[in-house]
């Protein structure tokens, strides 16, 4: 669950791994898999990878939304912890933050939690986190995370963008997508 997963995906593309980006049109807005369904934003590009679903409008270095699903067993790979259906929202948030910090690449000691509170996904109460960090160049990045558990596993919906211009511009797209999710 690395914060810089967008850059890694980019490198994989350059390495020639097969990836297929598809533009979301009106006909393709409804998305469904075995774990969840959602309404995708028109005009954005989507990519399905092993990590989950990734969406971007201008390119993953400028903004991306990702939807991840993990079974409870080793849901948190970096810290080697499981999630469980009975886990409290604050406990889930605590492990998510630990996972992010444990997986952080060099350049994220500036990570700050701006907000961490209960939040809803598909009628279930989970957590909502807003964090900020600085890259090694000094570029501020912000991230929104919404997470929840049910009997099947752990769901994490993430939005990441530079603070400059892009984060606030596309934030509502993320919020609308989260509201559309059904588990």
């Amino acid at each position: 669950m690395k914060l810089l997963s967008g850059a890694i995906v980019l490198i994989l593309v350059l390495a020639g791994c097969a990836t297929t980006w598809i533009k979301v049109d009106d006909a393709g807005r409804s998305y469904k898999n075995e774990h969840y369904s959602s309404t995708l934003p028109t005009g954005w590009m989507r990519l399905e990878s092993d990590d989950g679903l990734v969406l971007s409008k201008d390119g993953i270095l400028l903004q991306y939304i990702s939807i991840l699903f993990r079974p409870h067993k080793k849901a948190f790979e970096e810290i080697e912890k499981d999630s469980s259906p009975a886990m409290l929202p604050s406990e889930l948030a605590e492990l998510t933050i630990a996972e992010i910090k444990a997986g952080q690449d060099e350049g994220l000691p500036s990570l700050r939690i701006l907000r961490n509170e209960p939040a809803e996904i598909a009628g279930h109460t989970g957590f909502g986190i807003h964090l900020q960090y600085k890259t090694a160049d000094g570029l501020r990045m912000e991230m929104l995370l919404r997470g929840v558990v049910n009997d099947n596993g752990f769901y994490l919906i993430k939005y990441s963008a530079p603070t400059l211009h892009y984060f606030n511009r596309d934030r509502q797209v993320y919020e609308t997508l989260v509201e559309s999710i059904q588990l």
Partner: protein
Amino acid sequence: MSHHRGFFSLLLISVLAVTGCASTPSSKLHYTIKQDPGSRPLEQIVLLPVDIDVYEMSAGGVKEEVPEWSSTAENNVRNALLVTKDAGNTCCITRHVDSSSLTPDEQEILEEHLAFFNTVAANALWTTLPVNTAWHFKAEHFDYTLGDGLSFLKTKYDLDAGLILLGEDVVSTTGRKTTAFVGAMLGVAVPLGHSILMVGLVDFSTGDLLWMNHEVSTGSTDLRDPDSCTEMAHRLMQGYPGTLLVKGSNPQAGN
């Protein structure tokens, strides 16, 4: 001032590996200018602080920055661009901003925007990779922006737009060149280094990236040498729309 551009360099070199040589057009123009060249009149265009790192690469591939060489390369590039003129002999860029003339807060804002340009440029490059055909609409409708964070340069210094220029040069030692020679005989490619220049023209009011270009040279350019550097800088500035944007000028000039 030195930005961490390892990822960006990796990206550009990877582009070369994927495409063979830089055969795809690298110059990108904001869609509003493509649609209407006279739509973005600008009077005062300046060169922002140039940032180039020059490294020496040893026989075994160990890379070390040489600060004196970096400074020489920056001076060479600055001098090359400040004398750039179009066919009509209208000087496009006559001023450069010295970062010491900015307040500490302004320097911090500028630094972050230069880092941001690095990211935006890398992203723009990625969307135009041959393998990324699904993203090529971004090249046709080029609308990247840095936001309005640099608008203080307009209000405080009466500047309309700025050229951002980043670069990297890797110079091989004699030992490295010998290794490459022997490698060639054995049929093994040993990289000899590269020169990379990346430029962007930013509208200070809106942050729009009006034009962007890059130039990559593998082994034949030395940014420490004024003539070699000027040649590469002039190749980089081909397609520069500056004269199209100067108020009162003939919009066809420079085509």
